[in-house]
């Protein structure tokens, strides 16, 4: 049974780093790299072998209504692959980047705790357990945002921690209400019991969950903490936060709870649509005005999360396929863009686009991979962003919501405009950049090159033949709604 190891490996690595690394950075780095590599191999293996099956593991041998269970279906495996891939590249990128901030084993311990928390949220089948793992991931995230030890980083971490506290309290209240109504914390049992209950209860619980997890996903009215936290963190951590954390804690939990537990109530799907459309447009409008490259990227995260929410709200197979596909693509290209920003910050000593210059000669890998990522996020074929956006837009038209499709297209054009600004001022301007402060090493270049390649390769997921064993099982799990109950409880 490999299921518990997705939590055991990173958590064990975190404790081992603290215990035996002897405060030496190399041991810590080697241990965390080994753990991340093992997780990547395991998750890819699990995704390939599983082929639409659902694995259930009861912790301590306690059967389902009593004990805590871990559940791994296609959706969980898909998310695990995403988290492990980004974590691995992010660690490779960190090796040199973090040394330039401070050489510290604590960073690697916190990083592994972050991964353990996210993996736990993804594999758990128990509502309160999900809450606990979520807090583990958030603790590590708060500490990592403040890692640079400057006043504005502490301020961002404080803001993030307070917002995280509000959303956690809302989620805790929602869990209490659910437990009061169903006397169970296992998600599958809750889903079964809730079907016979008062619809008012679903409304009440759904509203609390929507506010709580919406804050974590940074959908537009709940976004205020994101630009500060994501732009203040060290670049590899920004990549983890923007690339996977808001998806594991926000989007994944929203999908799991609203589709598999609450059975996709129409009112909340409408809320997804509206939140998505508002996030797409306002996020990108706020992004265009930014001159700090990392703040610009952070605002784009809000806008891209909007696309995923829009796809989720359509309640069609095609829309959900688009949302799931965009989830993966956004993790790849947004992490790549944050690596680029980190490399530029390290090499040029600034994050302001106006102070940068043409770096195509000095930093060829950074310049070219950022071009790939910019085209990808703006939705230019043949890169992955194009295919997922097209899926979402076509699905919106098919579902009879042309207005939302139009908003998505407008958002995409504005995204293109703001990334033209990045390329024009930041990387490919006429004025050559000054001498580099620090050279960019092989590890950082390798991380960027791998993700740039993934931007191209992952568009293959849409090709018939490959789509059947990558996207389709995931969409089946989500659109199966109540099927989740049967596959977990087995009756």
């Amino acid at each position: 049974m490999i299921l518990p190891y997705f939590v055991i490996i990173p958590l064990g690595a975190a404790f081992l780093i603290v215990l035996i690394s002897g405060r030496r950075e190399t041991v810590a780095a080697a241990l965390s790299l080994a753990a991340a590599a093992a997780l990547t191999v395991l998750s890819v293996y699990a995704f390939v072998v599983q082929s639409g099956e659902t694995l259930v593991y009861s912790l301590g041998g306690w059967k389902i209504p009593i004990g805590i269970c871990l559940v791994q279906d296609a959706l969980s495996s898909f998310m695990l692959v995403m988290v492990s891939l980004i974590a691995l590249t992010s660690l490779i990128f960190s090796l040199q980047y973090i040394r330039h901030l401070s050489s510290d084993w604590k960073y690697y311990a916190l990083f592994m705790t972050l991964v353990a928390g996210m993996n736990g949220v993804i594999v758990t089948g128990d509502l309160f357990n999900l809450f606990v793992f979520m807090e583990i991931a958030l603790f590590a995230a708060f500490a990592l945002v403040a890692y640079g030890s400057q006043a504005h980083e502490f301020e961002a971490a404080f803001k993030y921690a307070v917002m995280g506290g509000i959303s956690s309290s809302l989620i805790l209240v929602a869990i209490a209400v659910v437990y009061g109504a169903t006397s169970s914390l296992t998600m599958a049992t809750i889903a079964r019991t809730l079907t016979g209950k008062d619809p008012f209860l679903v409304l009440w619980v759904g509203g609390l969950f929507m506010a709580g997890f919406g804050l974590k996903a940074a959908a537009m009215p709940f976004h205020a903490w994101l630009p500060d936290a994501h732009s203040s963190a060290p670049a590899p951590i920004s990549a983890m936060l923007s690339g996977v954390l808001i998806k594991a804690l926000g989007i994944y939990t929203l999908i799991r709870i609203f589709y598999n537990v609450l059975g996709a109530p129409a009112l909340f799907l409408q809320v997804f649509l509206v939140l998505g459309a508002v996030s797409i447009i306002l996020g990108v409008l706020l992004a265009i005005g930014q001159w700090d490259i990392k703040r610009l990227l952070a605002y784009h995260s809000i806008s891209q999360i909007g696309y995923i929410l829009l796809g989720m709200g359509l309640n069609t197979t095609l829309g959900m396929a688009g949302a799931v596909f965009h989830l993966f693509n956004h993790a790849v290209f947004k992490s790549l863009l944050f690596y680029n920003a980190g490399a530029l910050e390290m090499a040029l000593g600034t994050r302001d686009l106006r102070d940068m210059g043409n770096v195509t000669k000095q930093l060829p890998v950074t310049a070219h991979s950022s071009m790939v990522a910019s085209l990808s996020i703006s939705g230019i074929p043949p890169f992955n962003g194009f295919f997922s956006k097209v899926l979402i837009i076509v699905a919106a038209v098919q579902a009879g919501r042309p207005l939302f499709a139009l908003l998505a297209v407008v958002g995409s054009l504005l995204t293109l405009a703001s990334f033209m600004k990045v390329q024009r001022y930041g990387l490919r301007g006429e004025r050559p950049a000054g001498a580099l402060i620090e050279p960019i090493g092989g590890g950082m270049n390798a991380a960027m090159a791998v993700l740039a390649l993934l931007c191209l390769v992952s568009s293959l997921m849409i090709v018939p033949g490959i789509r059947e064993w990558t996207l389709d099982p995931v969409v089946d799990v989500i659109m199966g709604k109540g099927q989740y109950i049967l596959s977990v409880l087995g009756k």
Partner: protein
Amino acid sequence: MTLYVLCFALFLVGLYGILTKRDLVKIILASGIMGYAANLLIVLIGYRRDAVYPILEPGKEAAVMVDPLPQALVLTSIVIELGITALLVALALRLYQKNKTFDISKTRRLAG
């Protein structure tokens, strides 16, 4: 019912404090109050009127018991709360060292 309403009121007091106060310490206190309200709600949900503690002893008849699970949950969530509060206090202290003030309206560097 009154208890639930009062509990909800406590939650709103905490939320109000977080949203309106300008002092870091008061924000931390307000976030604590909000956490207490959530914990109180969990305990209330497990509570039964005139029930006994949930332990079966020899020679004692089974009666209506309070639900023991929420009490276990509340212990976990109190520990999490403690961690969050400690982290917030640590961040507030470091902010004070940097800015020499607890007032966030005077130190705000991150806008929009």
